Structures are given as C-alpha cells and as structure tokens.
C-alpha cells in the first residue's frame, strides 16, 4: 500500500518535472495560474472549510502579497509617476510580502476573531472594496491604475525571467518554464504545511471551533485568538498566492484583485471539497483551467459559438458551467470532487487483489464495531442487521 503511494508520488513528481519540456507556454501559464490558485485555495480552505469562517475577502490578501512583493523588491522610480520601492533582494521581498499579508490579516483580526458566518462573510467584502480603493489611490506604492512592473525573482543569481537565455535539453527555458519549478516547490511546501496544521493540534482546535465553539473554549482552545490566527495564516497563503501570480503576470493591475476573484476561491473549495488540502488543489485546478480550456477549444466545442458570432461565447459558457458546477456539486456530491474520488477509490481498489484483502479487513472491523454497538444496549448479542453505517468519507485532512 504505502509502496504504491510512494510509487504514485514519484510518478506524479516526474510528470510534473517533465511538463515544461513538452508543453507550450499556454499550458505552463495555465498550470502556474492553477498552482497559485491552489495555494490561495488551501489558505481559504483552512479558514472557511476547516474553521467554518466564511471569507469573501481573500482576493485582498492576494493583492497585499503581490503589491508588497513589488514594493519590497523594486528599486524606487522617479519621474512623473514617482514610485517607491525598497529594492530588497527578491527572495527577501517575497518572504516579507507573505508576512505583510499576514499582518494585514492580523489587522483585521478584531473582526475576524469576533464575527462568524454570514456576518463575517459580508464584513470581509469590505476588504475587497477598501483594498481596491487603496490600490487605486496609494499611487506611490501601488502605481495606481497603471499597476507596477513585477521584478523577476532571483534566487542565488538565478533569475526567473526570460533573460538571460537558458536552454535545457534543447528546450528554451523562458520565465514560464523557470517559474513552473518555483511554483511546484511553493505549492508542495504550502500543501504539506497545511496538511501538517490540519492533522495536528491546531487542526483539531479549528475543527472544533467550527463544530462547537463553546466546547472548544471549554476544552482550552482560545477561540477568538485561534480564529484570528487562522485568519492570519490564511491571509499568508493568500499573500503567497499573490506573489506567485504577480511573478507570472510580470505586472500587477488593481482590477484583477476584485470580488470575482474572491468568489472564485470560494467556488474552488466548494467544488474541490471543504476542509482538505487535496480538495482545495482539485478545486483550484478545476476553476482556473475551465475558462481557459473552453476558450482555447471553443472552435472544437459544439455548444460554444465562435467569439463575435452571437450565441453563447466561450467565456459565457465557462461562467455558466462554473456556476452550474457549484450548484450541481453541492446538490449531488456533498464532499466535492475529492469526495467523489474518495467514493470511487474503493470501487477501483476492489479490482486489485491486494486491496481486496484490505477491504475485507475493514468490513470485518466495521462488523465488530456494529456488534459492540448493539451489545452496549442489549446484553444478549445479536448478529447485526446490517453493516454499520460506513463512515462518510472523511475528507477533512487528506
């Protein structure tokens, strides 16, 4: 079993590494968008999925991350539109940007710690609107409506940019190819960290705050502080996603970090699966790839009309599909796509003899648990009428 997991991990890693050697820029960029989205989605899943705190302001923290990186990493510019900058080494700028996003989350913590549910959700809307206002008005830092050029990341003298030119295995390595690897590393790190948090002491506390706030407090969890803490953590994930997306864009523009982006993130975790790392990643891939694929293959899709020809355009089709996916998944797949995967897995596993043995073993334990459940109430042990309720796929922390 574990051998299989390792093997599939290795295969996955190999595939991920091979991608830049075979796929063109469009795909690399789409992949990078998905990676950035996945990082951000993991963050909001920690907050909304695992802790039950609805946030509609995630895009704000992406903005903070992106702009802070630019500000910390750029040299100041004079001229008609004077732009500030600290000119720090870019890795330091990236780190500081993530921290800044965390601080921004922390500043919001009096709200984040006190509110919940719909009230918090709508309160966080304020972040979007205030954020946009600041992005447009704090020109010396943000460049206003023009946005700012993003300095390419440079790690130990290696630039994640198109220049200097680099050819690996006869494939020209431009910024997208290089960033691909950076994205992979960041995403893997972010995912492992979140998994650790969810499976560890903080994760349990978060889940209990979601399920029963008072009980959490009485069990020793400082509820408001934890709420605020998770908010900060999720902001930092947003910040990291912002840094990555800025590197891919090469330029930050304020319009991008609007309400729609926030809603996208909510859709991601619903579609992927609430409360888990894998769910966030699956949802992020789905949501960020769907419009691009539809647009790219619009000519080949029967339903979708050519742009400009009337009828449902690819962008419209993508939006309708996306909205419908949210609805359909909640109606028919309560665990999200991840839950679906979880449900399919036993079916697939049954095909292989090794896992068949395992399946039998689990059904045996469930039978015993059913037996003991009944013996708790009746002295004479009767055979169970039915298999005990199979645990609903626990999608909490995969």
């Amino acid at each position: 079993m574990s051998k299989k997991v390792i093997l599939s991990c290795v295969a996955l890693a190999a595939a991920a590494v091979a991608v830049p050697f075979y796929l063109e820029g469009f795909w690399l960029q789409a992949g990078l968008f998905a990676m950035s989205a996945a990082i951000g989605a993991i963050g909001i899943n920690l907050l909304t999925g695992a802790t039950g705190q609805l946030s509609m302001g995630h895009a704000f923290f992406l903005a903070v991350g992106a702009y802070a990186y630019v500000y910390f990493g750029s040299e100041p510019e004079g001229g008609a539109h004077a732009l500030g900058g600290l000119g720090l080494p870019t890795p330091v700028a990236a780190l500081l940007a993530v921290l800044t996003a965390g601080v921004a989350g922390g500043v919001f913590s009096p709200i984040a710690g006190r509110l919940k549910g719909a009230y918090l959700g709508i309160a966080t809307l304020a972040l979007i609107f205030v954020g946009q206002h600041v992005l447009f008005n704090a020109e010396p830092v943000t460049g206003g409506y023009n946005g700012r050029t993003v300095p390419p990341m440079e790690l130990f003298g290696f630039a994640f940019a198109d220049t200097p030119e680099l050819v690996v295995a006869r494939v020209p390595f431009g910024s997208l190819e290089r960033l691909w690897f950076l994205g992979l590393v960041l995403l893997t790190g972010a995912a492992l960290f979140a998994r650790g948090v969810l499976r560890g002491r903080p994760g349990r506390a978060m889940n209990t705050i979601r399920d029963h706030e008072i009980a959490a407090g009485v069990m020793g969890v400082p509820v408001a502080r934890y709420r605020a803490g998770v908010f900060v953590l999720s902001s930092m994930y947003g910040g990291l996603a912002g840094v990555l997306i800025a590197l891919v864009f090469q330029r930050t523009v304020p319009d991008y970090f609007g309400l729609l982006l926030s809603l996208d993130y909510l859709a991601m975790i619903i579609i992927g699966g609430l409360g888990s790392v894998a769910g966030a990643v699956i949802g992020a891939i789905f949501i960020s790839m769907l419009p691009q694929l539809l647009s790219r293959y619009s000519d080949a899709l029967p339903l979708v009309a050519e742009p400009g020809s009337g009828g449902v355009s690819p962008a419209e089709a993508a939006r309708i599909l996306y909205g419908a996916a949210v609805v359909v998944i909640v109606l028919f797949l309560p665990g999200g796509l991840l839950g679906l995967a979880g449900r399919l897995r036993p079916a697939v596993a049954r095909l292989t003899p090794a896992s068949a043995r395992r399946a039998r073993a689990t059904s045996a334990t469930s039978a015993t648990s059913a037996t003991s459940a009944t013996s708790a109430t009746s002295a004479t042990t009767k055979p169970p009428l039915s298999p005990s309720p199979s645990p609903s796929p626990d999608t909490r922390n995969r």
Partner: protein
Amino acid sequence: SEKATGGGAAPSAVGGDGVKTGPGVTADKITIGLMTDLTGPYASFGKSLTQAQQLYFEQTNAAGGVCGRQLEALVRDHGYDAQKAVAAYTEIAPKVVAIAHFVGSPMVNALKQRIEADQMLTIPQAWATGLLGSKSIQVTGTTYDIDMINGVDFLAKEKGIKSGDKIGHLYFEGDYGESALNGSKYASQKLGLTLVEQKIKATDQDMSAQVAAFKAEGVKAVLVSVGPRQTASLVGVSLAKGMDVPFVGSNSAYSPQLLPTPAGPALLKDFYYMTAGTPISADMPAMKKLAADYAAKYPDTAIDSGVPSGYSAAAIVVDALKKACEGKDLTRGAVVAAHRGQSSWGAEFGTVMDFTTFDKPASLLSYVAKPDKAALGGAVVFKEAATSDLAKEYQVPVG
C-alpha cells in the same frame, strides 16, 4: 524539441518568396489577433470592433490579401478579466503577427512588458496616457487628456465659459478618468477656471449626490469622463434639478443606446463629446462606404463608434503589414518598424495620425460630436476636428 514558446526571441525563417517570416505568418496565411471583450462590460463595443475588423480583413482578402497571403483573425474574448487576458495572450502570442485591437487598458497594461518584448504591434482600444511610450503599442488618435483640453477650449470659445468660472469634472477612478482629469486640470489652470472634481467608480449608477455637489459649487459647465450610464444619470438629474449647463464628455462617455432612455432628451439638449475618431455619420466617402458595407454584412446589428474605430485600427495593422512586405520582412519587429515609419496616416478616415513618435499621441485633433437620434451611430459632427492652442502647448505625461 518543437516546443513553441511565447516569450523571448521568436523564431524566424525565410519563405519561398524571399519574405522573412515570424510568428503568425506562413507561406499563405497571416494571422492577426483580436483581444476583445464580448462578455464583460465592454461587450457591445468589443462586438462592433470585432465585426468591423473581420469585415476589413475580408475585404482585404477579397482584394488579394497582403503579401500574397490571406489574413485570418484569431479572436479571444477575455471578458474584461486580467487573468483571462494574460492567459489568452500567452496562448495566441506565438500564433499571431500583431493585435489589431485590444480592449481594456488594465489588460494592456498588465501585458505591456510582454508586448514590448514580443515586438507585437498592438492597437489598444483605450486612450489613456498610460499606454503611451511603448514602441509596439499604438494608441490611435488623441488621448483622453487632449480631448478634454480641446473640450475646455470648446467651452470657452462657444459656451461662454470665462476666467474665474467654475467647471465640474466627473470622472472614473482609473486610467481613463485620471488621464482625462490631467487634461482638464491643465486647461482650466491655463484659462483661469476653477475645477470641481468628482471621482466615482464604475459601480455608481446614481449621480444625484454629484449633481448636488456641482450645483452647490455653482459650476457653469461639466466635463464628463465616465461611462454612458453615469453620463445619462448626470445629465438627466442636472436638468431635472435645474442645473442647466453644457456638458462635454470624453468619447467613452456616450453611447447611442442612451437615447431611448429617460435621459435622452437631456442628452440631446446640451451634451457634446470629444472624439478623435470620426463619427460614422460624418459626410465622408470612407464612412459612407463603411456604413453601407457593415450594414450589408451585419444587417441586424446597430452601428456604434466601435465600427469606425475597429475598422481603422484594422487598416493601421494591415498597412503596416503591407509596408513590411515591401521590405520583404514580415517578422514582428519589422512590422512595428514599418508601422513607425508612417508620419501621416489615415486622411481618408478623418483625422491624420503620426506614428513616428510613441511618447506623444498620434494626433491632437478632436471632433466635437453631438448626440442625434436620427443619425447613424446616434451622433453627428458638431464641430470639425481641430486642435486647440492649449493642446499644442500641452506636455503629455507618459507611462
């Protein structure tokens, strides 16, 4: 590997006809990208642009194409979303030689560096000064600030605004409004006017509060650099509340779709807008032909300012291609260079443009147009294109 890359130096080759080719050009085909908005806030504009350009390419193809090659448009709809625009650009960049129109200045801004690196001749359909200063990006006609300067000049000359008067300026947050504001600030300072600013966001619909503020200040005229909806509200409320002053808008402030709304009468009364692009109702052969051809090809669609705008933008790109063909080089760099070699382009479309410098607007000439129910495109030329003296002295901020 045969992997195509978007960025960096694009591969080039020499074809059988001795013409050097690059991305988007094959032996018999030239592909031109259209980065448009068909689903977002500028959908109507995007649709007109796209259709007009497709019309132009068809006509060119019918006349033998360019450099022995047929033109083909590759259309991508970004729905006014920066990420989709970046994604779409990355997708089409290796496949096209130029971008005949690109809707949305935030999107063009986001891609500025790449467009420059790719030497992709791009015609944005926005007129903010922030888009100037890039060799590959060609802003057509005037920028918003020039229009506003010419507009203030028009107010002074024809509407009796004089030194000491207050005028209002209602503008959008963002590069459009703020470019325009630069112009109005400059002009009112030059003429000794006091400028009353009111900044709004695109989500604002009701201009009552702004009208109240203008009224309180006693403005004698109002400049308008917002969307058509806001214009309608502003003009309608002003009139209803007895603030009967002239209004002068930027070219994006007006849309003929407003005429049937309750604000229609107010718009017809004392509203003008400044534009470098000739209204399609203008009495010019090129416009008449375009109107006829367009109506023939797309009988069910209304004609708005996107039609002449898109059509002439397509002509700019095709002319650049033709010039590049003369030099037997259809690589992108050569196309941009050929384009930048033209100093007086487009007399047949109205205003003449100079493409040789790229840190100045291609023209300083603005028409004063006026809404008109009966006219094609909902507007007529009120005053022929002219450059005010103010505009000539004005230093356009770049970038």
